[in-house]
């Protein structure tokens, strides 16, 4: 059981080791060290998981205390790990998918000038994420929460030589601050209301606080979750986060960190249970985000942008599940999504790699002949996310939609439409990338600078290709090295069979039973009859299949269909422009005014004092004539004044 300590400790050790010796280890040894660290962390998680399995369902929550972190009067924060089915489920896929992505990065980042630093960040990220899920109180969770935020910033702007990457990093950081603000205030309120921040102390007595306080806590926590998990209105950072290296997009911005918000909601479910209206809000925000992001994904040309909007959309599904009270479905979708989205991202990375930093899908096509393994695994990921019967996404999405049906029919309609759109835009992507005519040989009109690794001072082999990437690709696309293909294959297996974790047939619902001690007690019963469930599942599946057929028939024939890619969708409904206008213009106005005040009032006072002294000096120096007689006159005058004063006093 003490293996639980090792879960976060090993990535931390890897981080320390790489900080100290990363440069010496260099390429590729540093990558292997990092992979070993997270890989052994996965083993430790598996051991802990096996241990928990061996216990009764009711005794599967264990607190492993390490030391008292803070002790201020009656306020005590212990640095402890909460090992229970929920946190271990999270740890399993964080370390599992994390290990695969580390492995993939060894190949993908090969030749990068900051190779070892990349793995420093990755290991630090893994450590923070594990602290986030394992923390047994809100403060430790917040520590991990900020840790992943910082690592996300480092990794998005990893290629900070590129202006856009640096800007994207800042954007993610600032947007997340808004959410973190909510998290912090919620933490304060929780302590004020319950006098404790430890989950197993305050959650059982959540009902004792006043309803207003509970609503405030729930809303603020949801704000935090919105920031981290990229929901409306704080989702804008995620598409830009694609500026980071592709493994980062896969690990942080698809599989792990962005699920932190969903995790937080699931963890706080006993509290949310008392605020049904907030849950309604969560469900609606989730559903609207899912639909909204899915529409945008339909018109993006950048292979990673499509996946980014798709991620936002899928996270919306998870929030829809949380809001409908189906926490297990949310966690289930989180796990399956981790499989297929990481797979899709890594596949996209392999494509980008194979095409020498081409990210425009309109300039791909027919790649299945050149990259058979990548194509095969990508297709599995595509079918999984589209909800093709039997694959991982099919089962988890059905769970969510069934819960939405039980909660509100309107939410179900939104969810079902989104499912169709998801199938459509993913089909569009697959058709554009792997089918149709090869288009990478055509001369590109202009270099739009979005290439993943472009304009970097990387040594072989990237640099020699970026040099002439401006005109044409002289080299045929090639399959990724085996090191990058292994994770793809493993994740493809996960995407194929991930659904087995929680089949909706009584005893087959492993995840449901496994999470029941944590989430089962509070989740409202969702009454959806078995036949209804099958019926709505069939409707959604048929919808998805139709979307696949339509999407494929359109996009495999022609890569250009302007009617289907309206500008408003390409520009993501203009939300970025709106935000720039609202906050940018307003902020610029405030900044300009402040600058004026600074210049005129503050600087004026400072400069005024200065010029006053100069003036006094300039005038005062006239008194110093250098003539003794003047000084003598002054002395005499002074004596007369003093004598006069004394005389008047004496006389008066």
């Amino acid at each position, binding site marked *: 059981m003490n293996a639980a300590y090792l879960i976060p400790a090993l990535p931390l050790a890897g981080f320390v080791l790489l900080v100290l010796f990363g440069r010496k280890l260099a390429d590729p040894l540093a990558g292997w060290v990092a992979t070993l660290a997270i890989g052994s962390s996965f083993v430790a998680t598996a051991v802990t998981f096996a241990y928990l399995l061996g216990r009764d369902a009711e005794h599967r929550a264990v607190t492993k205390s390490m030391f008292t972190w803070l002790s201020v009067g009656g306020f005590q924060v212990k640095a402890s790990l909460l090992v229970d089915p929920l946190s271990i489920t999270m740890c399993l896929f964080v370390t599992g998918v994390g290990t695969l992505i580390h492995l993939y990065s060894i190949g993908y980042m090969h030749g990068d000038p900051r190779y070892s630093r990349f793995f420093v960040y990755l290991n630090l990220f893994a450590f923070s994420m594990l602290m986030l899920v394992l923390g047994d109180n809100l403060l430790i969770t917040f520590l991990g929460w900020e840790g992943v935020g910082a690592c996300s910033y480092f990794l998005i702007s990893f290629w900070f030589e590129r202006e856009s990457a640096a800007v994207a990093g800042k954007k993610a950081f600032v947007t997340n601050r808004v959410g973190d603000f909510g998290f912090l205030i919620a933490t304060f309120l929780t302590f004020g209301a319950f006098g404790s921040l430890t989950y197993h102390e305050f959650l059982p007595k959540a009902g004792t606080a006043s309803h207003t306080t509970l609503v405030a806590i729930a809303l603020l926590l949801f704000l935090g979750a919105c920031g981290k998990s990229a929901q409306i209105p704080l989702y804008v950072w995620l598409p830009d986060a694609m500026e980071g290296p592709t493994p980062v997009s896969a690990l942080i911005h698809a599989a792990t960190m962005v699920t932190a918000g969903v995790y937080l909601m699931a963890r706080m479910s006993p509290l949310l249970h008392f605020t049904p209206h907030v849950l309604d809000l969560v469900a609606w925000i989730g559903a609207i985000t899912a639909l909204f992001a899915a529409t945008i994904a339909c018109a993006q040309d950048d292979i990673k942008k499509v996946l980014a909007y798709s991620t936002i959309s899928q996270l919306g599904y998870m929030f829809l599940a949380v809001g409908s009270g189906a926490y297990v479905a949310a966690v289930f979708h989180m796990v399956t999504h981790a499989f297929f989205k990481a797979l899709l991202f890594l596949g996209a990375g392999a494509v980008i790699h194979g095409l020498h930093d081409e990210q425009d899908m309109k300039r791909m096509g027919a790649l299945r002949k050149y990259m058979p393994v990548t194509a095969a695994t990508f297709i599995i990921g595509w079918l999984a996310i589209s909800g093709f019967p039997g694959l991982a996404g099919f089962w988890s999405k059905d769970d969510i939609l069934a819960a939405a049906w039980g909660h509100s029919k309107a939410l179900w309609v939104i969810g079902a439409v989104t499912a169709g759109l998801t199938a459509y835009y993913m089909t569009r992507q697959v058709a554009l990338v792997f089918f149709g005519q090869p288009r990478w040989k055509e001369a590109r009109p202009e270099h739009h600078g979005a290439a993943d690794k472009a304009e970097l001072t990387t040594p072989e082999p990237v640099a020699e290709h970026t040099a002439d990437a401006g005109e044409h690709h002289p080299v045929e696309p090639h399959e990724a090295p085996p090191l990058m293909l292994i994770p793809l294959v493993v994740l493809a297996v996960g995407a194929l069979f991930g659904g087995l974790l929680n089949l909706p047939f009584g005893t087959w619902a492993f995840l449901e039973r496994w999470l029941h001690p944590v989430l089962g007690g509070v989740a409202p019963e969702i009454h959806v009859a078995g036949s209804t469930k099958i019926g709505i599942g069939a409707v959604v599946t048929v919808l998805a299949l139709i979307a696949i057929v339509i999407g494929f028939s359109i996009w495999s024939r022609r890569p250009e269909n302007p009617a289907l890619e309206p500008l408003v969708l390409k520009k993501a409904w203009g939300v970025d422009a709106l935000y720039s206008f609202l906050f940018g213009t307003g902020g610029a106005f405030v900044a300009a005014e402040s600058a004026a005040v600074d210049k005129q009032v503050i600087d004026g006072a400072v400069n005024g004092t200065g010029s006053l002294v100069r003036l006094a000096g300039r005038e*005062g*120096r*006239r*008194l*110093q*004539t*250098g*003539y*003794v*007689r003047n000084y*003598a*006159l002054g002395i*005499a005058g002074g004596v007369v004044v003093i004598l006069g004063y004394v005389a008047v006093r004496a006389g008066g």
Partner: protein
Amino acid sequence: MLLAAVQPTTTWYLVLGALLFTIGAVGLMVRRNPLVMFMCVELMLNAVNLTFVTFARMLDDIGGQALVFFVLVVAAAEVVVGLGIIVSIFRRRVGATADDLHILKG
């Protein structure tokens, strides 16, 4: 004879002291020859001495007379230093006046 009838009182001495002081002070301010200015300072010092002695007499207090000796000693020392300075000034620039020495002008 007429003068003999006039009995000089202490006030006369005080007035004489004041006059001498004023002559010295005005002379210091209006003359430019360092030597003359120096003599004016001596004049002022001695006017003060006269006043001291007068007050000592008036108030029947020996303190005033004792102070005069201090002033005399200090004046003697001052004469040494002052004349030394004046001599060195004249060695450097012949016929200099006090106004020529205004290098401390601000």
